[in-house]
């Protein structure tokens, strides 16, 4: 197994090309610009297409067109850009077009700053635009998963005819780690619904309009059925030392790695800590959360937001156990030491 030292942002582009992506449309925004830079180099060199669009609104509509034409397509942006893509994401969902996006989250609201946050959670995990739709949302914790998740995203997108969003953060893009890029390119297949400018596909229609409420209702119900299938088939998480744990962290992205360090330190100090690392955010690993909640463990949600993901944890736990939040915003991130001492204090408090 030959590995290459690659930055998370670049790994995503390698993953995209190995995942059969042929078209990247981009618009610069820190901390996602490096993905566009790498795509501009690799896609162009490989005879694929990289195009810098005039705005994120144009990006999402170029993706809409290129996806209609059967290609595996992607872009990368950050909060302000993803917000501009909201209408387009909704159209993609309504027209059932596959698409892959990467959101390297930065701090908000407004222009905020370019330090990491996880405050796009609601926008991305709940949909982002108008209507009853979902995106598949994956949360990588390092360069290898930036590669793996991006590569896999294209087959998920095609299989379910949905947008897949890789929800990263400023740090995950910056980390350089050994990455195994594998050896097979997954090109995907001809899609029977797409337009190929030939006789066979001429009848195909890409639209999100169903004029009669009953037809639009049926369309919506079919979308929900797809989401239920996604929930069954794609949900993924990692359990780290949770089996005997009395305290379990729930986290994703860079925070999950901080918590992983905290688990090791807490165990050394005699506290049975564990970590539930979320790899998919939609589908949300509700069952895994509930299983632990039923055992009455203390759950500590560590998150770089005002508790957006924690809402889903509480719902999944059905309010059956103690859930505590360690929240940071604005680009601040908790140190391992802080997580450890917070946890020790929390446990002490509950012992009294």
């Amino acid at each position, binding site marked *: 197994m*030959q*590995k*290459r*030292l690659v930055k998370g942002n670049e790994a995503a582009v*390698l993953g995209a*090309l190995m995942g059969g992506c042929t*078209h990247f*449309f981009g618009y610069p925004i*820190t*901390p996602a610009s490096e993905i566009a830079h790498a795509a501009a180099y*690799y896609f*162009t*060199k*490989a*005879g*694929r*297409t990289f*195009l810098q*669009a*005039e705005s994120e*609104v*144009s*990006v999402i*509509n*170029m*993706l*809409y*067109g*290129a996806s*209609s*034409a059967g290609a595996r397509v992607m872009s990368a942006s950050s909060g302000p850009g993803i917000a501009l893509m909201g209408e*387009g994401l909704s*159209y993609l969902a309504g*027209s059932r077009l596959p698409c892959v996006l990467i959101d390297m989250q930065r701090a908000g609201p407004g222009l905020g*700053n*370019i*330090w990491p946050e996880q405050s796009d959670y609601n926008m991305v995990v709940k949909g982002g635009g108008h209507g009853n739709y979902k995106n598949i949302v994956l949360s990588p914790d390092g360069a290898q998963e930036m590669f793996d998740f991006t590569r896999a995203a294209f087959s998920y997108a095609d299989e379910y005819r949905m947008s897949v969003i890789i929800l990263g953060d*400023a740090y995950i893009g*910056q*980390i*350089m*780690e*050994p990455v195994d*890029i594998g050896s*097979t*390119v997954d090109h995907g297949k001809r899609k029977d619904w797409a*337009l190929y*400018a030939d006789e066979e596909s*001429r009848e195909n*229609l*890409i*639209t999100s*309009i169903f004029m*009669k409420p009953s037809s639009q209702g049926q369309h919506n119900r079919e979308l929900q059925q797809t989401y239920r299938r996604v929930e069954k088939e794609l949900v993924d998480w990692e359990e780290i030392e949770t089996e005997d744990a009395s305290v379990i962290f729930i986290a994703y992205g860079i925070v999950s*790695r*901080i918590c992983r*360090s905290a688990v*090791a330190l807490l165990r050394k100090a005699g506290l049975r800590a564990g970590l539930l690392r979320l790899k998919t955010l939609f589908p949300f690993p509700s069952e895994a959360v509930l299983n632990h909640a039923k055992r009455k463990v203390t759950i500590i949600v560590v998150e770089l937001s005002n508790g957006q993901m924690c809402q889903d944890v509480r719902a999944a736990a059905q309010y059956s156990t103690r859930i505590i939040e360690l929240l940071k915003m604005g680009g601040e*991130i908790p140190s*391992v030491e802080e997580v450890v001492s917070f946890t020790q204090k929390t446990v002490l408090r509950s012992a009294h």
Partner: protein
Amino acid sequence: MNTIETSSVLYTHYERKEGNQQTTHYCPGCGHGVIQKMIASAIEELGVQNRAIFLSPVGCSVFSYYYYDTGNIQCSHGRAPAVGTGVKRVLPDSVVVCYQGDGDLAGIGMTEIIHAANRGEQLTVFFINNATYGMTGGQMAPTTLLHEKTLTTPFGRESERDGKPLAMAEVIASLDAPAYVRRCAVSSTKELLRTREAVRIGLKNQVDKLGFSFIEILSPCPTNWKMSAVESRNHIEQVMKQFYPLKTFVDKRPENVCIKNNSFPLMNDDELLSLLTGDLTARSFESPVIDSPKTITIAGFGGQGILSGGTLLANSAMAHGLDVSWLPSYGPEMRGGKASVTVIVSDSSIPSPLDEKPDFLLAMNGPSLQYYKDKVKTGGTIIVNSTLVDDEIGRDDVNVYGIPATAMAQEALIPSAASVVMVTSLAVLSEVVSVFSLKESLNASLKRRELLDANMDLMKTAENYITSNFLVNNYNKKV
């Protein structure tokens, strides 16, 4: 007209239409139906029905896909030129019809149309100027004439408040790229014939790959103009034409420059794989040298090769079969000239990659020493660039060494390689990586390969210096 005459490119029976499937959804006297028939006939004549993809906008023509027996995409409001760009970049031989109203194109979609035109996308855009937002019931459009009353200008459009009507053909013609820009009207038999010709030229240009064609068509909306069909056509002839002159603004057909495709050839899987793997993979020795994770922070200012020093160290650790993470200082910090990178090496997978408590600090200037020195673990090691740093350390629980990294790098005429000296010192003084693997990883870590020999020599100089000078802590800690 509210039934479309037959063309093999149009369905005869509108099965996609929920409701009366024999007639179109356009009002009597509306220009859309006439123009759409012309487009269908031109597609038929050019023999490109199978390659044609019709982009329906948001507006009264949103349901164009009821009628066109071609590929169909319904687009969001104003974005057809972006959608068309996406389609054409995937299917260069498709014939894409961008069909847009004035609210769609000149209002919400102004950005998309300007940029598609400016790129010279291989598209044919039909811009239906009916000076109103038809579908939403007759509000002011960017093209609404001055003093005209609409739902949102009940007292008439005023230039001071609403701006003047936008003449889009003129705007598009001001760009360099478009191949064909023309304004027509569907107000009389004579103009209908001219429009028919323009439609055909616009589509043929796309088939011939001549570039971007833009055809503006003044088109009646009797319903919102509150006029009869005849009055509407007269209104175009007598009023609209005064402001929107009918003419050909750009016609590059005689130049006949087929747009060249300058892209790189499409790589097959093997070529792609070797592009992605590159020759950047360091050789593997599979002999871990450490038994517990080690954190190394290299810090200084931009230009000292901090990040590539970190890459060298990381590649070298990887060659030992270790897991490794490399995390640079980030964002605004870098603008101020500060640079740092934290490399963690471990024989198992690395949890947090952050620089909380380094085992080793390679301090390449004074400020970075001050910033990081107290974070170094007890029993850890600080290596100082003694050319630039003469500060107090103020700790006696760490090992401290000094090496004139900047001076050595300058002497070797590669001042940006000062970090190589520092990393070499680390390799000699610690078990993190071996000097051998560092040397073997040099090629994979250098951005400028032509400096390989100079870097290698510098490494040897550093190695010799350290082995002869560093038997004891040599830096004055000034505790």
